């Protein structure tokens, strides 16, 4: 083992000396490798960033929550098709709450966008969600300060509001907002709670939201709106069965005949997860495609330059062979050289990908982080390319006839 390491070190020195001799050529040769590794590592770091951000957000929707809505979250069809569906109503929500056996909690909600104002500060187009009393339980909303709505507050349609972390930050700065009055649209509400910071979802802040009792949305912002009926399933293992029951109940109350299609959608986190996985899977496939292609091109470049190098250094090979270098020694020498070229390319690519990652998180809404596995994979792959595409030139060098090589000037 030590003998091998010593031999390796000798060859690394020889290779570095040869590469330093033609620095420009060596660097240019690595470009293909750099692009290949850079592509894969950069995409991996974007996806890693997405994973840390979005995947977590999707998970907070709750794996055992079902959402009955007018529109599906994910559809291959034209959304105009769903526009003529009837709105989901409170009556339907009550029907589900009474009849659904596999539901732990049922919480209707609805949304609108309004301007939110405190003293002389106004935030435009803030998402206002009208909620019922179990909304926090069903959707996994966490209150950081104050409290969520009680049953009676919802029933009496009190003008109270729970605000998102960012709303608090922008309107109140360091002041305590609990008990303060803010205006939503034209109505005044009293702040009773603040939600925990949740971060961004596809560039949109999840903390720039306010929550009010469901009834007040209808009362203050109009009756013509569809509900989202969130259902928390009591047994996470039986989500599919619960989904069937929910669908049956919805079809019952809407009196659909067996031949009629559903005129509502049952959404669940799984759909988003699936879509997300499809999206990132597609990104990975594309990145690996481009990466593989440029690594291939880079590898052929390496092979080409190594063949040139073998031809140029025929004399050196002849001398080494005359002095007793066996075939495997020459092979090893040239393999080490091509692996080093590729390894240098890999290192350059990794360094660049850290820079790219920083740029991406600065100029796009996507967070970005270079995952450790991609660094090792990038270096490993480039070394492997060097090994693979170096074999032919190296074995060609090893098989050269020393007499002919020595004659070469």
């Amino acid at each position, binding site marked *: 083992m030590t003998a091998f390491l010593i031999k390796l070190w000798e060859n690394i020195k020889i290779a570095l000396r040869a590469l330093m*001799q033609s620095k420009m050529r060596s660097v240019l040769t690595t470009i293909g490798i750099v692009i290949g590794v850079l592509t894969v590592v950069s995409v991996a770091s974007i996806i890693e960033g997405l994973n840390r951000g979005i995947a977590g957000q999707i998970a907070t929707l709750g794996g055992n929550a079902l959402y009955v809505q007018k529109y599906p979250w994910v559809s291959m069809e034209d959304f105009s098709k769903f526009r003529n569906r009837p709105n989901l109503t409170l009556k339907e929500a009550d029907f589900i709450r009474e009849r659904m056996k596999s539901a732990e909690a049922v919480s209707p909600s609805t949304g609108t966008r309004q301007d939110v104002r405190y003293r002389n500060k106004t935030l435009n187009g803030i998402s206002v969600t009208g909620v019922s009393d179990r909304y926090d339980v069903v959707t996994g909303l966490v209150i950081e300060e104050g409290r969520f709505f009680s049953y009676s507050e919802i029933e009496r349609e009190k003008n109270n509001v729970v605000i998102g972390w960012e709303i608090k930050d922008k309107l109140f700065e360091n002041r305590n907002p609990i008990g303060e009055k803010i205006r939503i649209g034209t109505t005044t509400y009293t702040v009773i709670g603040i939600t925990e910071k949740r971060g961004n979802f596809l560039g949109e802040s999840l903390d720039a939201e306010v929550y009010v009792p469901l009834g007040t949305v209808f009362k203050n912002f109009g009756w013509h709106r569809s509900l989202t009926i969130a259902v928390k399933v009591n047994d996470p293992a039986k989500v599919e069965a619960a989904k069937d029951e929910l669908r049956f109940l919805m079809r019952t109350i809407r009196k659909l005949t067996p031949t009629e299609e559903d005129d509502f959608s049952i959404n669940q986190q799984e759909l988003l997860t699936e879509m997300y996985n499809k999206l990132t899977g597609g990104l990975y496939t594309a990145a690996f495609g481009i990466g593989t292609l440029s690594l291939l091109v880079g590898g052929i470049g390496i092979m080409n330059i190594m063949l040139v190098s073998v031809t140029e250094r025929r004399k050196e090979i002849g001398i080494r062979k005359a002095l007793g270098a066996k*075939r495997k020694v020459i092979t090893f020498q040239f393999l080490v050289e091509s692996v080093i070229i590729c390894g240098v390319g890999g290192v350059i690519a990794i360094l660049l990908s850290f820079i790219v990652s920083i740029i991406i998180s600065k100029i796009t809404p996507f967070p970005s982080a270079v995952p450790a596995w991609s660094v090792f994979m990038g270096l490993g792959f480039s070394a492997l390319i060097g090994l693979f595409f170096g074999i032919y030139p190296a074995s060609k060098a090893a098989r050269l006839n020393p007499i002919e090589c020595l004659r070469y000037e």
Partner: protein
Amino acid sequence: MESLIELKDIVKTYKVGAEEVHALRGVNLLIRPNEYISIMGPSGSGKSTLMNIIGCLDTPTSGRYELENVPVHEMDDNQLAEIRNRKIGFVFQTFNLLPRANALHNVELPLIYSGVPAAKRKILAEAAIERVGLSDRKNHKPNELSGGQRQRVAIARALVNNPSLILADEPTGNLDSTTGEEIMQIFRSLHAAGNTVVLITHEREVAEQANRIVHIRDGNIAEDIQNR
């Protein structure tokens, strides 16, 4: 009597295009330890081919070659490399030093290939450089050395593995006569120290410095004279 090199009916035939070239047509030659022998002949006589075969750079088409009683004529590429490394020290007309490596590293090369550890290598290489009187130039690269100095480095390299045979191919061919004489002086002293020296040359004055002169003509030994 003990033999260092024994060549029996060595034939070497090349194919150049469709034509067969008979470079050697059945050479028989015996070289004993500590001989100083020159192989002489005009270009095209087959002396280079003979040198390549004696130097284990090439194998004969037919015939036997025993080096220290070991048959080498049927060895493969790797076995020949090992023989060259341990038994033969080459000195070439064009020096054949690695241009990017300094003198010391050039002299170390054969030791690297015989697996001598770095520390011992350095000691041996420095001793060999000392023997050719170049200690003060050991860190110079070939292009910083004169022709004579380069050839001294090459001789140090040929000596460093303590070979059975020093094989010099036109060692003074690229040197002026004064420097050439200095190099020949080194070969004489190596012979005096017990080494076997085989000199390949086409120059009569160079050849006549050896104790035995073998003339090659048309792939055969024409004359084998004891010089002194």
